[in-house]
Structure formats: C-alpha cells, structure tokens
C-alpha cells in the first residue's frame, strides 16, 4: 500500500503501516490529553511530538513565559441565520470536539479569557461563506473558537490569518448529523508570526467535513488538525497546501481517528519549498480502531523542493486494529524540481521562469481543483504565483 518514496538530499521520509493490537499514536505522546497546561511538562525538544519544532522560536508559548497582550483582532462576517457569540470559559460547547494533546494547545486552553462560538442552526443551508478575519498587530494571544453546525446544516467558513502575532489556539468543529462543513484556513501571516493551533473536528453521523489548510506565511506555523467521528457514515477530506520559503518552519500534524464503523477519510497535503532553511514537516497519523469496521482511508503527502537548502520531514503512519476495512493506504514523496520537465518546456520556447511557474502550478493544480470554491481556488493560484514571482525575481 505504501508507494515508492524518492528522497532528495535534505529530506526524510519515514512511512509505516502497522497492524497493531494497541495504538502507538497515543503512547508516543509525552503526556495524555488534558485541558490543563500543568499536566504537560515543558518540552525540551526531543519528545516525539516536538522533535521537529524549533522551540526557541515559539516565543515562549511552550514554557509559560508568553503573556497575552493586546493586538489580535478577530472579525466575523456571517450571513443571516448564523449566530456569532463571545462566551465565557464555562460555556458547555467548549472543548467538546477534542482535548489538547500537547503543552501549547493546553496552554491556549488554560489561558484564553473569552471564546468565539459560531453556530449554524440545524437545516440551515448557507449560500454565502462565513468569513473570519484574524489579524495580528504584534500581540500575543490565546484563543478558542468553536464552529458548530446543527443537523443537516451546510456551511463554508473561511478563516484568514494575516499580520503579525504570536498565537496559540484551539479550534473546534462540531458537525451535527448529516451536516456539511467546509473550512478553509489560510495562514498568510507576515514573516515574524508564530502560530500554533490544534483543530478538532467531531463529525456527526453521515456528516461530511472538508478542511483546506493553506499555509504561506509566518516564522513558525504548527497546526494539528484532528478528526474523530460521532456516528457512522461520516466523511472527512483534509486538504493542505503550503509554500515554505527561506527560514520558515511550517509543520502540519494530522490525526484521523477512525473510532466508528463505516467512515471515510482522505488526506492530501502538498507543499513546495524554496530557499535556505525552509523547513516543512508533515506528520500524517491515521488510526483505525478495532471497532471501526468498513473504514476507508487514504493519506498522501507530496513535496516539491525547488531549491537547495530546503528540508522536508514527512512521516505517514497508519495503524490498523481491524482487518475488516474497505481500504487503507498512504503515500509520501518528496521530489526535487524536475530538470527534465523544465528542459522539455523550455525546448518549446517557454522561458525558464514561466516554465517553473507552469510546473509548480501543475503540482498544486489537482489539489486546488478539489477545493470546489471558485474564488478560493483563484486566490490560491494567484498567491502561489506571487510566491513564485518573489523567488524568480
């Protein structure tokens, strides 16, 4: 099931498919999940979940020294029928979709003062997206956001992160039975931003969840999208696209837990890297529990290394505790920019920078097409072009 892996210099790809009685996804963590930051020791960097992350660049989010300040604005624009509320720490909807699994997520949960809750009532089908603009003006913030869809509700949420901030956050997506939620989270931060977040999706019976994570900016971005199922027939599509430039650390750690029979998951993350010390990390954990018969899952990560000096760590990990499944597979590949492709295009008169652009666009095209929201697709293509322009110039 694992595909051939081609590994250029400066990258690692370690994949595994384990058939196990008990999961190691859980036992690999240095502490069990908890809402309390005190339950996690301060990481030193060698822990499984921190070993790729430059702790010294987290601006104290991991060791309790980061202090919340003014300077992060959140603006929500929601169509009619949607409730947008700011609630206190005791609201029962908080933390329902998942529990923090590492110290920074627990720090965020322990330190936020007010949480945002966006509710789409049952059977409400939105025709316009909900837009959440998160803009940093140099502040440090701990945040919690809940997006809840009632049964058979349908919504698209676009979350934009821009500006400069140090942000630790938990984001919960709660999908009622038969609900359909698409969330596009764009990390388009300025160069200095640090953003560490855990995304928890809890998918109701026959509900479908599509997550599109797009990371362009920031000094350190470390996102941890997680999915569990509250009923049978749920579907999760997790798409990701990142463009890691010189000096940037962009880490995406996914966990899909198939804890319920007859659910599907499909994970596709693609990244391009360019410049010295560009570092992308992708961890794709999929756990199929013993009771999750009829599971259908596939996860894939592809990286395109455009220049020397960039580094990729890609680790797909699939654990299967039942043989009664429809399908399970993973693939990870990291390739250098293919000079033969470049030659072919240039031999047809196409100038080098245009040829490079064609190839990189092509690399992302299939993924972008799967997003299914036209203005987002166009924006992403435009943004990819900008990144390339900057590199080619």
């Amino acid at each position: 099931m694992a595909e051939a892996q081609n590994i250029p210099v400066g990258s690692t790809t370690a994949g595994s498919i384990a058939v196990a009685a008990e999961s190691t996804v859980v036992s690999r963590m240095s502490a069990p999940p908890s809402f309390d930051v005190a339950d996690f020791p301060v990481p030193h960097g060698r822990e499984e979940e921190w070993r790729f992350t430059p702790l010294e660049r987290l601006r104290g989010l991991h060791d309790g020294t980061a202090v919340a300040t003014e300077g992060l604005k959140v603006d929500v624009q929601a169509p009619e029928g949607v409730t947008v509320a700011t609630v206190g720490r005791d609201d029962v909807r908080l933390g329902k979709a998942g529990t923090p699994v590492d110290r920074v997520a627990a720090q965020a949960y322990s330190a936020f003062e007010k949480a945002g809750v966006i509710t789409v009532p049952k059977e409400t089908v939105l025709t316009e997206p909900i837009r959440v603009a998160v803009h940093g003006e140099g502040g440090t913030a701990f945040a919690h956001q809940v997006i809840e869809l009632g049964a058979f509700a349908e919504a698209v949420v676009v979350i934009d992160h821009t500006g400069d901030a140090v942000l630790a956050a938990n984001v919960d997506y709660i999908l009622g039975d038969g609900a359909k939620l698409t969330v596009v989270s764009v990390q388009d931060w300025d160069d200095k931003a640090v953003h560490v977040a855990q995304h928890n999706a809890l998918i109701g019976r026959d509900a479908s969840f599509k997550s599109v994570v797009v990371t362009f900016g920031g000094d350190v971005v470390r996102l941890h999208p997680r999915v569990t199922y509250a009923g049978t027939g749920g579907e999760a599509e997790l798409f990701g696209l990142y463009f890691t430039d010189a000096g940037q650390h962009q880490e995406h750690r996914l966990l899909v837990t198939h804890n319920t029979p007859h659910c599907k998951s499909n994970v596709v993350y693609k990244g391009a890297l360019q410049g010295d010390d560009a570092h992308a990390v992708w961890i794709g954990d999929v756990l199929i529990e013993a009771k999750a018969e009829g599971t259908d899952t596939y996860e894939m990560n592809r990286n395109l290394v455009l220049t020397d000096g960039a580094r990729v760590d890609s680790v797909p990990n699939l654990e299967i505790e039942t043989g009664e499944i429809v399908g399970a597979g993973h693939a990870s590949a990291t390739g250098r920019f293919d000079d033969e492709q470049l030659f072919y295009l240039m031999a047809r008169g196409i100038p080098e920078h245009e040829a490079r652009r064609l190839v990189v666009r092509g690399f992302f095209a299939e993924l972008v097409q799967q997003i299914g929201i036209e203005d987002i697709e166009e924006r992403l293509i435009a943004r990819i072009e900008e990144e390339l322009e900057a590199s080619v110039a």
Partner: protein
Amino acid sequence: MATLEIRDLRVTVEADNATKEILKGVDLTVKQGETHAIMGPNGSGKSTLAYSLAGHPKYTITGGTVTLDGEDVLEMSVDERARAGLFLAMQYPVEVPGVSVSNFLRTSATAIRGEAPKLRTWVKEVKEAMERLNMDPSFAERNVNEGFSGGEKKRHEILQLELLKPKIAILDETDSGLDVDALRVVSEGVNRVRETGEVGTLLITHYTRILRYIKPDHVHVFAAGRIAESGGPELADKLEAEGYEAYTKGGASA
C-alpha cells in the same frame, strides 16, 4: 534560407565521476527544405547530438560550433534556441503533471510566435491538427504526456512540430515504438511540414522502416560519436541489407 551548421562538435557527459566523450567531432549542414536521415547503432550518440543541439544541461560542449543562419546556437539558452527556430521531437518525451496539453501548446505557441495566437483561430488550428494526427480531442485536456502510450507521445510531439513550424526539426527516433498505422500517421504529419519547404529535417532513426514514408535527401551513418559515412537514399538500402556491423567493428572511417 535557414541553415544549421554543425562543425567539429565535441560533447562530453559526466557519468560515474568520470568525463566521457560522446560526440567526437560531428560535421553536418542542414538547410531549409532538406531532409537528412541520421542512422546508427544504439549508443552511438544520436540522442546526444539531438540533446546537445537543443541545449540540454547534462551535455557539455567541449569543442566545435553550431550556428543557425550564422547565429551562435551554443550561446543561446534552451528556450532561445527554440524561439530561434530549432525544434527537437524527443525520443522520450517527459510527463508534466498538472499541465494540460492545451495550456502547454498555447503557452508554447505564444512564446515561439512572440504573441498569443487569437483564441478562435487557435482552437480551430489545434483541433484540425489533432484530427489529422488521429488524436482524440480529449487529449487537449489531459496532462502533458501523462499516461500517454508510446505512440500517443510521438503523435503529441509531431502535433507540436506542426503547430510551432520550426526552421530546423530534429526528430529523435520518432518512429520507434510505433505500430504500422501510427507510423504512417506520424510520417504523414512530418511530410505535411516538409512539404511546406520551410523546414530542414534531421531525422534520427535506428531503422530504415520510416524511410519508406519519409524520403531523405541525404543519409548519414552515425557511429562512435561521429558521422562515419554520408550518401544519398541508396545508403539506407545498404544499411537495410548489411546492418551497422561494418561501422561498429573496425572503427569508423569517413
């Protein structure tokens, strides 16, 4: 009249930490309207010649000159050579995932012609060219060479030849891997371009079979990195009958 002049061309490649000379002084002149067949055994350096003319970065030119109408080709980048009028139909065309044939063709035609072709006439032009090569219209929406069969890749190369109208076309084993029907279709494509009288053709091949469809004016035997013998079409008949043995055994003599 466009003329490609190759003088004493010497080319090396780096392989296993050693420098290996592949082309050992190639002399050849190809004029617009002419068709030259270059025939030779496996490994004699035919593709190396083709790639070197197109400017592939793997090949290092260590001596000699190549000019197109007096312009120094070796000074030009790969894309400049193409825009100057050189075209290489490749022996092993490369897959370009995520780039559709129609996007590729249009981008290429825009680069070669110096302006974007008018959309309406362009669509028609491509459609008709594809029809002539028995290519299903659905190919336009597929990714370049991705999942194409050997024969489909070759048709796609000739499609580009017809659309880009180069001054000098180098066809590297366009015939290999084709069944008889495909060979005929592809050869007809090449002949349509030849009949304009505006292209000089360098037809690289291992087999004489394609020469029944595409009649060369000149035939050259390529062996051990240089042209070992040149003649008219009758040389191909001799090769057909005797093979390359005479050239590979005792070393080449011009």
